[in-house]
């Protein structure tokens, strides 16, 4: 029990092999996308020492708690661990790597069994890191190209994916900039005592120079209503990604989609894993891309959700082209209700970016009096311009 497996004087060969194997395993996790660096390699050895290698089943939880950094890794860890230490046939899930190989010329290493990770699905060119950097670079250059391009002209899948990522990132950045803008203002109503005292020292303690503190302005609470009817199908998925970014960045934002009825997608968009998010959306999306009954859906929103909105903070954002199968008057009544409950009502219409478009559709005409901001949302630039309009 009290045998120290690392004690090189009693078991020189075994100690050496163990150290190699543990470091090799740490590198394997790194090559599988875990955040394990040199420091973790050293700590992995310490973990092994503290957990007592010879004690059944305590190395695994120890290494897991050290090497994992989020839930996904936590769930993938067992597969990696088993593949490496027991040679379970799960090679397809594990990305093997050349850098993990420390060479095992010693016989003990080969006898130890397991760990023979197949070299499968390994990219032929460059490492994962290089690929990422490449993607980031091309993303940046695309941003310049496609800032003005209408989303509906994005046809090839690669471009579309990039645009989705950009749109989501834009939403996240919006929050940071809203925060920063608050701090830069110079006038205020409350005295910043700490700075005032500091300044008073040069006058022997008399507070001559006062410093003011800006009252922190609250960030808006965003409520997004996305039209997913057929007429919007070219835009709706991008808007969903935009909504996902907003939900991720603003902790209390909510998102709904509507066509003939209203469905809350806040929870689905909060899903960190993009594929699981898509699955959840598919479940929710029965009947999407059909006709639109904007008025009915907004009425449903008013009945079920609007009661929770705080008037002073809420900004309601509707993303729709305004093509409605209901009566314009009904839509107008519902918008009036929303307007009463919200600080600001924003309507984003992707058609507004097209040349020669006038909001003549019946629904749109009726809606205009209740809308604070009526803006286009057909390309990145127009989404970017939004941020300034949300605060003031």
């Amino acid at each position, binding site marked *: 029990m009290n045998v120290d497996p690392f004690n090189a004087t009693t078991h020189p060969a075994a100690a050496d092999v163990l150290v190699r194997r543990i470091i090799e395993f740490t590198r394997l996790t790194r090559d599988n996308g875990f*955040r394990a*660096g040199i420091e*973790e390699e050293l*700590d992995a050895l*310490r*973990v092994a020492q*503290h*957990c007592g290698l010879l004690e059944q*089943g*305590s190395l695994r*939880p*120890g290494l*897991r*708690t*050290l090497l*994992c*950094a*989020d*839930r996904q*890794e*936590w*769930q993938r860890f067992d597969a990696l661990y088993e593949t490496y230490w027991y040679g379970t046939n799960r090679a397809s899930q594990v990305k093997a790597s050349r850098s993990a190989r420390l060479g095992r010329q010693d016989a003990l290493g080969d006898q130890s069994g397991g760990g023979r990770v197949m070299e499968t699905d390994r990219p032929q060119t460059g490492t994962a890191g290089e690929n990422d950097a490449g993607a980031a670079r091309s993303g940046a250059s695309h941003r310049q190209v496609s800032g003005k391009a209408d989303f509906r002209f994005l046809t090839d899948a690669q471009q579309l994916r990039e645009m989705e990522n950009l749109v989501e990132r834009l939403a996240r950045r919006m929050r*940071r900039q809203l*925060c920063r803008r608050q701090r830069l203002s110079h006038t205020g109503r409350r005295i910043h*005592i*700490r700075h005032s*005292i500091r300044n*008073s*020292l*040069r006058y*022997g*303690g008399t507070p001559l120079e006062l410093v003011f503190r800006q009252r*922190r302005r609250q960030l808006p609470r965003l409520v997004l209503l996305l039209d997913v009817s057929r007429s919007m199908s070219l835009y709706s998925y991008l808007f969903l990604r935009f909504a996902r970014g907003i939900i*991720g*960045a603003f*902790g209390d934002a909510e998102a709904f989609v509507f066509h003939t009825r209203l469905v809350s997608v806040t*929870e689905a968009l909060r899903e*960190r894993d993009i594929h699981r998010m898509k699955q959840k959306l598919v479940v929710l999306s029965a009947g999407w891309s059909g006709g639109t009954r904007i008025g009915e859906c907004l009425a449903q929103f008013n009945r079920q959700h609007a009661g929770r909105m705080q008037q002073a903070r809420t900004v309601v954002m509707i993303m729709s082209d305004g093509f409605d199968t209901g009566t314009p008057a009904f839509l107008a009544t519902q918008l009036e209700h929303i307007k009463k409950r919200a600080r600001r009502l924003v309507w984003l219409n992707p058609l507004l970016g097209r040349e020669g478009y006038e909001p003549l559709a019946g629904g749109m005409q009726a809606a205009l009096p209740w809308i604070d901001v009526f803006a286009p949302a057909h390309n990145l630039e127009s989404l970017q311009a939004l941020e300034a309009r949300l605060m003031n």
Partner: protein
Amino acid sequence: MTGEPEIHKRLEQAGYIADRDLAIALMLLSRLQRPLLVEGDAGVGKTEIAKALSKVFDCPLIRLQCYEGLDANSSVYEWNYQHQLLSIKIRETEGNPAGEQERHIFSEKYLLKRPLLQAITMPEPPVLLVDEIDRADEEFEAYLLEVLSDFQISIPELGTIRASSIPRVILTSNGTRDLSDALRRRCLYYYLDYPTFDKELRIVNRHLPDISRQLSAQIVEFVQGLREMDLRKKPGIAETLDWAAALVRLDISRLDNDPQQIADSLVCLLKTREDRNALTDDVVERLVANLG
């Protein structure tokens, strides 16, 4: 230095039923002197870990509750302005030079220690709980990371204060925001899932010693069934305990005797209107009928 079996035993004694994995994570937290990031849904007992840990090591618990807009003044230190102003007034007549005056009012006497500073200046290592780190701003997260890796805090007026003891740090997160990679790397990690049937049963029996074994088993099975459903807010352990306590109060001995009363007491478990609506009478009956 305490080993894993010892920690496990003491956690039990402190009233916290833990898996062996968690005991190992806590042992490493103390030996590697790295913070432990605990993630999991609300109500699975993340905060309780820190409380139990302070009992295990018999040391004080210092808690820093994060919120949006949390800044250094409320988390690290603040000067006691009122006292400083008074002191300036009192010493006015003594005619001290300005430099002397400054040294006086920016001495430790006027320093108010907030949780982070408090934690690193204790004579014995305390448990520092940074609760809901995901609610704090990115800037604060970066600052916290710096404190947690260097264990020193610099105060412009006083100089650098080094840790007299390295606190045992537990961070919790609900995942309302992505945490930075740097912070994740710095920390050990533990994902706390909803408890298994056996574990939850032990928790209920432990907290409500008077409950009949049959009722507690039924309660736990019912709640576990509920978690399988697609609810907006799944009931956590605290909810299970509330519900169990309520049923004991209501003198209910078996869940399958009176489904109506069960349905009425579900307010303890379901905290949103959608969830309450989703759990219609037939669903409750079906769940109860499946109980052993």
